[in-house]
């Protein structure tokens, strides 16, 4: 019924959505250690070690050099490209003391104030950002 039969067609459609990285199996595989590293920050003792020396903490995880660099730079769009998932990445920005609104706004090119103003005015319209191919 609502389930697509062809996994290839199902996955291909996701690439047509503007400004969005759907957390597919391919991203989950690429980002496995990145997300598990982020998850480790759930424990207070790990947060202490992380805050004391981020690079040293990362050295203990089998992340790619790119992933390590973008974690240190807090470039969340790049981290999504490298297999990060937002619920896992939220452990990093929560440890930084950022709210979801503050962290999420950094991915949109807007300042926190502009982003908050957009949300208070009803959010981002889906008009024009549903499909790259169809431009709707």
């Amino acid at each position, binding site marked *: 019924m609502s389930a697509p039969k062809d996994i290839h067609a199902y996955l291909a459609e996701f690439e047509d959505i503007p400004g969005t990285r759907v957390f597919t199996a391919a991203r989950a595989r690429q980002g496995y250690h990145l997300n598990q590293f982020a998850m480790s920050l759930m424990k207070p003792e790990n947060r202490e070690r992380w805050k004391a020396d981020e690079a040293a903490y990362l050295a203990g995880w089998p992340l790619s050099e790119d992933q390590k660099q973008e974690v240190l730079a807090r470039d969340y769009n790049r981290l999504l490209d490298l297999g990060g998932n937002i619920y896992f990445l939220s452990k990093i920005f929560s440890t930084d003391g950022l709210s979801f609104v503050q962290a999420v706004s950094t*991915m949109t090119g807007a300042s926190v104030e502009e982003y908050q103003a957009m949300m208070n005015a009803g959010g981002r319209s889906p008009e024009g950002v549903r499909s790259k191919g169809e431009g709707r």
Partner: protein
Amino acid sequence: MARITAGVGSSHVPLLGVAHDQKKDRDAYFAPIFAGFDWTREWEKAAKPDVVILVYNDHASAFDMKVIPTFAIGCGERYNPADEGWGPRQVPDVIGHPDLAWHVAQSLILDEFDMTIINEMDVDHGLTVPLSMMFGDVSEWPVKVVPLAVNVVTYPPPSGNRCWALGEAIARAVASFPEDLNVQIWGTGGMSHQLQGPRAGLINREWDTMFMDGLVGDSDHLRRIPHIEYLRETGSEGIEMVMWLIMRGALGPGTRLLHRHYHVPCSNTAIGHIILEPKP
């Protein structure tokens, strides 16, 4: 005989837990949201459910990437609020109903829904925020809870149709439980929101309204909405709304609307909730 007497669909935005716990719920920003739940809290006091089957998703709290169950049912005695990175919420522990949960789990598996069974886990905002919204500030939750966790993070999540059918199977399972229990089923998450990428902040009031309209009455067209439509129209995290369809499926062929409420924004999210009864 146990019976499902009502269904609730509700957002579970973590910021609502913060507002509730810090008593900011009547501040200018939060008042229009919490005011929508005033009716619901009074209704819950009168409805007095014994058990809530609470459909939600874990947000990298109890489950990490090691194990990703599609449908998991909590059969334990109790669940503690999770430490999501800033200490656990100071809300009561969640008390399970292992007799009903195990009965439902066994019945579902015989009914060809291959559930994962959980005996121990912590529960995050996805489960505790709806409890706070429905019951307010209480020293203990007035219901037992059967947690039902759905994977809506790693693709593919279950289809809307599968969620609806699971709801139907849950209703059959509850109806064959011999004890006289007043059971509600809640589907949580949503509504439109996207927490990632340049398109973050997407809200679609028109689509959310269509979705809430579709939960009321005799139609089952919502079960056929494909994942791609949720993604395009409601943002990447709007997919959580498939969990509302488990609730809707459990209410049977027709529903009657008791209450609904919708407000934008709460944090990055459109917040909505709806109270439904099965049509006799």
